[in-house]
C-alpha cells in the first residue's frame, strides 16, 4: 500500500486534476489562435462576468452534491428571487433591503428543501423538482409573466470598477474564497463531506447531521438569492424565467469538475474550472460566429470530452 504518498498535497492535486482542466487549456489554445479578439482584456472580462452567476450557483451545488443530494430548484429559485429583488428595489429603492429580501426567500426555499430531504428522508431530486414548480409558479403569479425594470443604481453598481475588476468579479472571487475556507478549514465543510461519506459516523460523533444537512440546502438557496443580485443587475430587470434551466449548468459544471454523487467526494477548484470552461466555450464559439445549432452540440461534447479525460486518467 503506497497510496500513502499519493495523498501528499502536490501529488493529490496532480491525481485529482479533472479532465476539464485539459479541455479548458485546449479551448483557450484553439480560440486564442483562431480569434484575434479572444485574448483581449475586454473579452476576458466578458467571459468573467458571464460566468459569475453560474459560479455563484455551482459553488453551493458542489456542497449539495457532496451530501449525495441534488438541488433541481436552483434555477427557478434564482428567477423568483430576482423578481423579489427587483420589486423590493423598485418599492423601497434600497439595494441592501432588496438583497436581503431575495436572500431570505432563497433561504426559505433552501430550508424547505433541506428539511424534507434530511428530516423526512425524501429523495432530494423529486423534492427539489417539486419546489422548482412552486418557485416558478410564485414568480409568475407575482409578475404575471412581465419583467420588472429596476433603476440605474443597480446597473451602476454592476459596472463599478475596483482594482481593475468589476464588482461582480470581486463578488465571485470572494465567494470562491469563502467556500474554499468553508470546505477546508471549518467544521461545516468537514461535516458536509461526512454527510455524504458516512452519515452514521457523524451522528455517532455527537454531531447533529440533520442540522448541517439542512444548512447545506439553505446555503444553496441563499446563494441563489445572491446570484439574483448579479443577474438582476445584468438584466437591469427582474424576470420570472431568467434563471430557468441554470441548475443543470451548475450540476454539469460541478460534475465535470470532478465532484461525484457518491461518498462525499468533492473538489471546489474543479467546479471553478468547469464554470470557466463553459464560459470560454460559449464566448469563443460566438466570437468565431459558429452556427448556433453547432454551438449547442459543442456544449454537449465539452461535457463528454471532459469526462472522457477523467475516464482515461482512472484507467491509467
Amino acid at each position, binding site marked *: 500500500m503506497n497510496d500513502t504518498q499519493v*495523498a501528499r498535497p502536490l501529488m493529490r492535486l496532480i491525481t485529482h486534476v479533472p479532465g476539464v482542466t485539459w479541455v479548458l487549456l485546449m479551448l483557450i489554445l484553439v480560440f486564442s489562435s483562431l480569434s484575434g479578439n479572444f485574448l483581449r482584456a475586454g473579452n476576458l472580462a466578458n467571459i468573467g462576468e458571464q460566468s459569475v452567476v453560474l459560479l455563484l450557483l455551482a459553488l453551493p451545488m458542489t456542497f449539495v452534491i457532496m451530501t449525495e443530494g441534488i438541488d433541481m430548484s436552483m434555477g427557478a429559485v434564482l428567477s423568483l428571487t430576482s423578481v423579489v429583488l427587483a420589486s423590493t428595489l423598485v418599492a423601497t429603492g434600497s439595494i441592501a433591503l432588496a438583497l436581503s429580501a431575495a436572500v431570505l426567500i432563497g433561504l426559505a426555499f433552501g430550508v424547505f428543501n433541506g428539511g424534507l430531504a434530511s428530516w423526512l428522508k425524501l429523495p432530494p431530486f423529486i423534492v427539489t423538482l417539486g419546489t422548482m414548480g412552486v418557485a416558478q409558479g410564485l414568480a409568475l403569479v407575482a409578475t404575471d409573466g412581465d419583467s420588472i425594470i429596476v433603476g440605474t443604481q443597480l446597473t451602476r453598481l454592476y459596472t463599478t470598477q475596483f482594482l481593475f475588476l468589476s464588482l461582480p468579479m470581486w463578488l465571485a472571487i470572494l465567494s470562491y474564497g469563502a467556500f474554499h475556507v468553508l470546505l477546508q478549514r471549518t467544521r461545516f465543510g468537514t461535516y458536509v463531506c461526512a454527510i455524504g461519506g458516512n452519515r452514521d459516523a457523524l451522528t455517532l460523533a*455527537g454531531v447533529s447531521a440533520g442540522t448541517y444537512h439542512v444548512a447545506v440546502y439553505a446555503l444553496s438557496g441563499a446563494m441563489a438569492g445572491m446570484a439574483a443580485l448579479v443577474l438582476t443587475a445584468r438584466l437591469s430587470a427582474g424576470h420570472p424565467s431568467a434563471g430557468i434551466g441554470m441548475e443543470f449548468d451548475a450540476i454539469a459544471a460541478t460534475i465535470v469538475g470532478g465532484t461525484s454523487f457518491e461518498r462525499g467526494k468533492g473538489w471546489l477548484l474543479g467546479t471553478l474550472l468547469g464554470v470557466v470552461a463553459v464560459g470560454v466555450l460559449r464566448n469563443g464559439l460566438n466570437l468565431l460566429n459558429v452556427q448556433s445549432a453547432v454551438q449547442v452540440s459543442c456544449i454537449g461534447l465539452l461535457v463528454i470530452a471532459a469526462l472522457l479525460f477523467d475516464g482515461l486518467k482512472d484507467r491509467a
Partner: protein
Amino acid sequence: MREPPLLELRGISKTFPGVKALDDVSFSVYPGEVHMLLGENGAGKSTLMKVLCGAYKADLGQFFHHGKQVQIDSTAAARELGIAVIFQEFSLVPYLNVAQNIFLGREPSGYLPGTIDLKRMHVQARRILDQLGLSLDTHTLVHSLGVAQQQMVEIAKALSQKARILVMDEPTAALSDRECERLFSTIRQLQADGVAIIYISHRMAEVFSMGDRITVLRDGRRMASLMTGDATPDQLVQLMVGRSVDMSYARNFCAEPGELLLDVRNMSASNGVHGVSLKVRVGEIVGLAGLVGSGRTEVARAIFGADRVTAGEIWVCATRFAGGPEQAREAGMALIPEGRKTQGVALTRTVSENLGLASLPKTFPNHLFDPRKARQIAQALIQRLRIATPSPERNVQVLSGGNQQKVVIGKWLQAGSRLFIFDEPTRGVDVGAKAEIFALLDRLVAQGASVLMISSELSEIVHVCDRSYVMKDGTIVGHLQRAELTEERVMHLAVGQGSI
C-alpha cells in the same frame, strides 16, 4: 473489596419492535480492567454497546459512574463520561483525511468560531499515531487506506478522545497477528493508566490472554460473569451457544488428493500480485496465509477473474481459464469474498433472491424466472445450511453475520461450484457459526470439491488446511505441507525471516 466500579449498568432492557434485544442486563467495569464481552451475533452485544455510547436509549435500567447515578441519553452525554467506542462497521469518512477522521466532531477550534485549527489537529493526530506506532501521513484520505490501516485509524480515533472507558468491538477482526500485538501492547498501556476497557471478541486466544473478567450474553440476557482464571474455553462456548461445540475443527485430512483442479502458473495481475503459482487438487483444503495487505485477496480476485490477469496462465480442470467472473462461474469456481456486506450479499434483497443470484442461468435455462421454483430451491438451501431466517422473503440485512455468510456459500452451492475460494470466511462470525462453516468446508471437500482458504487467523490455517501457501509483498514466498504446517513457520515466512 475495591473502589466502586468506574461504570456500572443495572437492569438494562431495550426492546425493538418484535425483539427484546436486551433483557435486564447488569454489567460493570473497573478502572484498569479489561472486561471481555462474549456472545453469538444477535446476542445483544452491539445493542449493549450502542446503549453504552448513547446511540440507543435504554427502555429500563440505571447507569452509575463512580457509584453515583448518571444519565446516558445521548452520544454527547456518553462522551462526557469519557466513554469511547470502536465500532466494527467502520465509522470513517472516505474523503476526509486521517486527522479529520480522528477528530471528527471534536476538531480543535481556530480563532474564528466554526473554524478548525488545522496545524494543531495534525500535530495531535501525529502524536496519537506515533503512540500506536503508525507511520501514516495524517493528510492521507482514508479511502486510500487498506482495511487494517482503517481499523488502526478507528482505534486512534477512540484513543484521541482521552477515553476513561474504551469499548472495542472485535478490534482485531481485520488485523494481522503483528498488528494485533501492537494493539495489545497499547491496550496494556492504557490499562496501566487506569482506563477501563470493554472488549468484544470471538477469538478465544485473545479472551484468555487479554481479559481480566468475562461476561457472556445470550439472547439479550446475561448468562454469566466470571474471572478469566475460573473459565475454560469449552465452558464459555457452552454459555454462548447453549450447547457444546467442538473447537478443534477436527477433520479427517485428505490423505491422497484427487486430480488437479486449479493450476495457477506464474500469474501476475493488474491489482499488483506477481509471479504467483499454486495448485489445488480435488478433496483438498489449501490455505493462503500471510499478513493483511500481502496480496492474498488480490490473488483470489485475479484467479476468479474479478481483476485483470496481465501475465501467466490459469488452468481449471485441465482447460485454460480466461475471462471474468461469469466465465469463472461457468468453470465451476466460487468466490466467497472478504467484504461480505459489500461484495457477498445484496443486503436489501431477499434471502431467496440472494441464494438464486449465481445460479439463474443454471436453474432457469430458458431465461423464464419462476418465483415458486426459486423459493423451493431457497427453502432447500436454508434447511441444508441451517440458515436462521424467518422466511426466504426476508431481506438478508436482518440476518446475523454467520447466516449471511451461509447465504453466500449457499449461492455457490446452488451454482454447482467445485472450487471454492474463501476469503476470511469466519470474519465477524461467532464461534458457533464458525464451527458450522468449517464442518461445511469438510463436507464440501469430502464430496469432491476443493477449497482455497484465505485467513488471517493462523490457528484456522493450521487446524483446517491440508497444506498452505504463504504470501508476502504480492507474491508467494512459501509452501508448507500438512506435516510442516505450524503457526510459527507460517509467521516466519509471512514476515520474511528465513524460508523453506
